[in-house]
Structure formats: structure tokens, C-alpha cells
């Protein structure tokens, strides 16, 4: 088959496609969830944070645990795009676009959910005007903003050749879509000088994103670890959060991979072998996270000292026991066990396992944030006796809206960008067949 024919096949397989019925229904459902969340947010803006179940004692709830979850998921961008790319792990090539889109969507909503948690979002400028450099919150703002920018660049820059291909080859698309590709492609014609800039930029971005990604989740963990509260006052938190983030990020990629493979018939590219490899990667990351989990709970449990004792009792046998053990079993132990077997790394089982890991990760972040607040380091007089926290309807609808929003961003990006990088796949094929570079060659482009 000629180079042009192969490229044509790639484009036909991977080009963005219109939604079918399922895609439209999916989009409408997401929009409805978001609208409902917006309505609840208006209630919150009008009536203040009293619409939530948060209080003086339980001052952080599902908004913050949702924030930590989003930051965790966003780390996948650095894992797949950067680490695997720099180590020339070629089998991960089909995953880079998926990973970067997940990262961008997740980090956008990480930033937004923090603003939602503020009772007075109009005062966010105070963080810039009056923020103290000593504050972990200011570090978090800086690092989240930096990571967002890097993730957007790492999504956009490698997409330039694909935008050019779509600009030149996609027919029967609306004029505005064609114009969008034309603008986004930045006059890309595939000149060697352009490729040099692109490859150098991507390489440096891949190197740069690793410390920033490690930084974002370490700094997020310091929001907790820099306090004296039981359950948070731990030197283990930085690597614990990073390990958890890699795990949930990998699981998120697998879940999206499966949906893309089923919906867009991408079996040729998102092969069983790829799922197997991602499953192996997920097992490894899960085992590392399991190690940090054991460290995090076993050490204070061995001592059962002071405030830690009450918190651990709450988690192990108390009010949060059912959630805690469900997360450990269904979100970690069983997935690890199942993935150790080859059948557990087949596409559909792996999709189910990954979904369980992602859901477990969300509840894990809840268990990190909320139970500690029931055991304050400095005693607080709670109003009206027993302290409770169960999120209100408004909190749930806003949180679900943020999750729906992230999914909507991913959906829109997948609608207009190829799921898999066409030019990188073409290069990959050529490398394997030792054919000279053809991607976005000016002679072939027209």
C-alpha cells in the first residue's frame, strides 16, 4: 500500500466524526446536569454557603474532595504524554491525545470547583493582590495555573499537523469548522523547520511537565499536610497523593479508551495488546499506591496515639467504616487482584475495573478530606451538639455538574479533534515499516 493510501486510511479511521444518536443523547444529558448544577450554584451565590452542609467545624466537604480528585485525574497528562513519550514507549502513542484531553478537562474543573467552594468568588482577586507567598494555597494557585497552561500547550502543539490534515482533507464539514481548523493549524504545511520547532517544543514540554505535575499534586497534598490535624499531619502525603493520582489517571485513560474503541470502532488502534499493557501499568501504579496506603494507615494505627486514634476508629470501625472498606476492597484490592490475571486486562473487564478504580478514587478523596474535620486539632465548640456532614442537594448537584462539565469538555474536544494523533500514528507506522516520513508532507497534503 502506498504512503498516501496509508495516510488516507488513517485519516478515514481517525478523523473526527459527527455524533450519532448515543452521542447526542450523552451530550444533552451532560448539558442538563450542568444546567441543574448552575441553578444550584445560583442558589449558593444568592444565599451563601448555608445552602451546603458545611459548617464552622466541617469547613471542607465534597467541593474540596472533588478538587483533589480532578487534580489527581489531570496527572495522567504528564504520565502518558511525558513520561512514556520520553522513555520512547511507542505503544503509548495512540493514548497521548486521550491523556492530554483528560488532563486539560480535569484541570479546568479543578480550578472552577475551587472557586465554587468560595462563598464570595468575587473576592478571588484578593488572592492575587494580597496573597502571601508563604501560603500553600498561593502555591497551589500558581502551580495549577502553570499546569493548565502546559497541558493546553501539550495538547495543542502536537495537534498542529492534525489540524492541517483536517483543514486540507476533511470535506463536507461546516464552514465554521473548516475555518476553525484553518486558524488552529497556524499555516502548518509540514516544513522541516516547522517540524523542528514542534518536536523541540514537545520534547521540552514533556520534560517540563513532569516536575510541574509532581509539584501540582505535592502542593495540593501540602494544603492538608501543612496542618496539625490528625490524618493530615503526615510527611507521607506528597508521594501518597502523587501515586494515587497516577493510578486514577491511568484508570481514567483506560475507561475513555474503551468508550472510544466501542463507539468509534477503533479496535485497529486501541488493540487488546494496548489494553493489556495499560492494565499492566495500572497494576503497577495500584501496587505502588497500595504501598503508600499501607504506610499512611498502618503507622498511626500501630501507635493509636492522641487525636489519630479517634480518627482511625472512625475510619476502621466507625461512621466511615463502610465507605473506607468499600474503597479499599472495590477501589483497590479487587482491581489489583483481577488485573493480575490476563483475563482482567482484556478490554471490557479492564474498563469495569478502571471505572471502579475511578469511583473508588473519588470516595477516597472524600475520606481524606472530611473525616479528619470531625476530629479537630484545636477543640471547637460545635453548635447544637453532634456534628454531622452529609452534602445537601445543592452540593451534590454542583459536584455532579462539575463532573459533567469535565466530561462535556472532553466530549467536545473528542468531537473536533482526532482521538488518536494521525500524524504520530503515521510516523509510528513508517518507523515500523522503515518508510520515510510522510505526515503532513506538503506534496501529499494537496
Amino acid at each position, binding site marked *: 500500500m502506498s504512503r498516501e493510501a496509508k495516510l488516507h486510511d488513517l485519516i478515514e479511521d481517525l478523523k473526527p466524526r459527527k455524533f450519532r444518536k448515543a452521542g447526542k443523547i450523552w451530550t444533552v444529558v451532560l448539558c442538563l446536569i450542568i444546567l441543574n448544577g448552575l441553578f444550584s450554584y445560583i442558589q449558593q451565590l444568592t444565599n451563601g454557603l448555608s445552602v451546603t452542609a458545611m459548617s464552622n467545624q466541617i469547613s471542607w466537604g465534597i467541593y474540596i474532595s472533588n478538587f483533589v480528585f480532578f487534580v489527581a485525574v489531570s496527572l495522567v497528562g504528564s504520565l502518558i504524554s511525558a513520561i512514556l513519550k520520553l522513555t520512547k514507549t511507542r505503544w503509548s502513542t495512540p493514548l497521548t491525545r486521550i491523556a492530554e484531553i483528560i488532563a486539560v478537562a480535569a484541570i479546568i474543573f479543578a480550578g472552577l470547583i475551587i472557586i465554587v467552594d468560595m462563598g464570595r468568588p468575587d473576592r478571588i482577586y484578593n488572592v492575587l493582590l*494580597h*496573597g*502571601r*507567598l*508563604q501560603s500553600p494555597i498561593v*502555591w497551589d494557585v*500558581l502551580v495549577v495555573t*502553570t499546569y493548565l*497552561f*502546559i497541558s493546553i*500547550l501539550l495538547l495543542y*502543539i502536537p495537534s*498542529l499537523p492534525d489540524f492541517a490534515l483536517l483543514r486540507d482533507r476533511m470535506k463536507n464539514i461546516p464552514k465554521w469548522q473548516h475555518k476553525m481548523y484553518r486558524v488552529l493549524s*497556524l*499555516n*502548518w*504545511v509540514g*516544513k522541516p*523547520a*516547522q517540524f523542528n*520547532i*514542534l518536536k*523541540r*517544543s514537545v520534547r*521540552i*514540554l514533556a520534560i*517540563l511537565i513532569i516536575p*510541574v505535575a509532581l509539584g501540582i499534586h505535592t502542593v495540593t497534598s501540602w494544603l492538608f499536610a501543612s496542618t496539625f490535624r490528625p490524618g493530615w499531619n503526615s510527611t507521607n502525603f506528597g508521594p501518597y497523593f502523587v501515586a494515587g493520582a497516577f493510578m486514577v489517571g491511568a484508570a481514567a485513560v483506560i475507561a475513555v479508551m474503551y468508550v472510544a474503541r466501542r463507539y468509534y470502532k477503533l479496535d485497529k488502534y486501541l488493540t487488546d495488546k494496548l489494553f493489556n499493557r495499560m492494565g499492566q501499568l495500572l497494576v503497577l501504579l495500584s501496587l505502588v499506591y497500595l504501598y503508600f496506603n499501607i504506610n499512611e494507615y498502618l503507622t498511626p494505627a500501630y501507635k493509636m496515639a492522641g487525636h489519630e486514634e479517634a480518627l482511625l476508629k472512625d475510619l476502621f470501625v466507625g461512621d466511615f467504616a463502610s465507605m473506607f472498606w468499600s474503597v479499599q476492597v472495590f477501589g483497590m484490592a479487587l482491581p489489583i487482584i483481577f488485573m493480575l490475571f490476563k483475563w482482567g486486562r482484556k478490554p471490557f473487564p479492564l474498563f469495569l475495573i478502571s471505572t471502579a478504580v475511578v469511583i473508588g478514587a473519588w470516595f477516597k478523596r472524600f475520606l481524606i478530606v472530611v473525616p479528619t474535620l470531625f476530629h479537630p486539632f484545636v477543640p471547637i465548640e460545635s453548635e447544637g451538639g453532634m456534628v454531622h456532614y452529609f452534602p445537601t442537594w445543592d452540593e451534590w448537584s454542583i459536584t455532579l455538574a462539575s463532573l459533567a462539565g469535565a466530561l462535556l469538555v472532553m466530549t467536545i474536544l473528542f468531537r473536533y479533534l482526532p482521538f488518536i494523533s494521525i500524524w504520530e500514528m503515521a510516523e509510528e507506522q513508517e518507523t515500523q515499516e522503515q518508510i520515510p516520513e510522510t505526515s503532513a508532507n*506538503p506534496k501529499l497534503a494537496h
Partner: protein
Amino acid sequence: MDTFITIWQSHLGRTLSICILIGMMFVNSDLTAQEAAAKIKPKLRLSYVKDLGGSTQVKASVYYIEDGERIYCEGAPVGFYTDEDGEDLFEEVKVNDAGEAILQLDHEGLTAFEQSPGHYYFFAQIEKNDKYKSLDEELYVTDADIKVNFEDNDSLKTLEAYFLASVDSAGAMIPVADVPLKVFVKRAFALLPVGGDFTYTDEDGKIMIPFPQDIPGDENGDLTVVVKVDEDEDYGTVQFEEEVNWGVPSLSQSPIAERSLIGARDNAPLFMVVSINIILFGIWGYLLYLLYGLVRIKKLGKVS
């Protein structure tokens, strides 16, 4: 049968009447109990506070006890009268959220309550209303004064305070013995007692205490000295206050003012400022360079 009916009827009638009467008693007592429960009998305490150099106040503390807790009667109207019959109302003041109705008096106002020169009579009353039962309280006060001399001889600081009151009928101020006159230094949140707990005026109405040399003052070494009689049954509370340069000058070494982790915004540790700025400018500088790379990509395409 007729007899039985008659008897039954008469019994019935009596029984019914008795039942109705008993029922009315309970109903009435219920109403009465409700009425009684609705009206609270508060406690009313009067106190007199004279701040020499400031104002004079008469405070009416109004509260009741419920389940062992003191509940303030916020909003209750307290009438202050100049006569004991409660007819000559001077002013009505509402109880505040601290449970006090405070009557502020200037010299002219105080005169209205003067029974005889230097002797005042205050009568406060809460009239019966929907919420509270009526209550009144009276207070007799003798006018008093405090004079203070600060003596600094060869770095030995001595404070002399005289307590004078209008003891005689002409209202002239004369020294009074055996009055517990206390000396304090004003601190940020409380009064620091100075000179011992039991300082009573002698036959000249005087106390004399050596003033400590080591009390920190402000940055100039100024202190506010307070001399007072507290809640005396004859004189109320009389307070004298004066600023004197008898403290040790203290330069505030606030940790917030130094470069530290807990410092103010402009006082972040130097290593932190340097390292964070290097990282931020380094990373963002390169990101801006990447954006420039995109511009170059676009230009290269245009040339082509």
C-alpha cells in the same frame, strides 16, 4: 321510678355542676398557669459608675435565671425616676444585648437625682407588661472623688492616692478612711493589679504604694494607671485614669514584621522569594518562548 329519676336527676345535676366547677377550675388554672408562665419575674440590679474625667453612668442589670443559666432581658424598658414613688420619670432606657440599661448622666443630669448635696437617689422600675412582671429597685450613692499624685524621687516611683467623699451634709469632699482603693495598670485585655490586693485608705483617706519599675509600657514607656473603688455599697464604682511615663519602653518585635513563614505578605523568607521566583520566571519564560515558537511556525507557513 319517678323517685329514682328525681334522685338521679338531682344527683346528676349536682354531679354535673360539680364537674363543671372542677372543670372550670382546671381550665382557669390552666389559663392562669399559662398566664403566669408567660410573665417572667426578672431580677433588677442597679449600679453606679463614675469615671473621673469621663462620664457618669447608672446601670440597671435585668435578667432572669432559667435552667441555671442567666438570660438577659434584652429590649425590656427600664424607667429611671428621680423620686421614690416612680412618678417623675427622668428617662426610659431599653436593656441592651449585654443585659444592661445604661443611663448616661452629665453634671446637669446628675443634679436631677440629687437628694442633698453630694448624695444621689436613683429609682429604677420595670412596669408590668405582657412579658415581665413589674419590678423596681433603688440605689443611694454618695458622691466621691479620687486624687492621685505621682512622685518620682531618685528613680523610686511612688503613687499617692486620696479618696474623698461628700460625707457631711454640706456635700464637701473630705477624706474617707478604710475604703478599698485599688491601683491597676491598663493592659491590652485586662487591668493588671499593682501594689497588693488589700490597699485601704488610712485616716487621711490616703494610700501610698511603691510603683513597680519593670512594667512594660508602649514604645515611649507610657502607661495608663487606673485607681478605683469597685462596686462600693456607698460610693458605687469610682475610677480615676491617667497616662504616666513610668513604664519600660518596649519595642514591639512582632514576628509578623520579620521575614518568616508567618510573616506578612512583604516578609516572606528570602529563600522562598528567590526560589519561587526563579522557578516561576524560568517556567513561564520558557512557556512564553514556546508561544513565540508558534508565531514562528505560523510565519514559516505564510512564507511557504
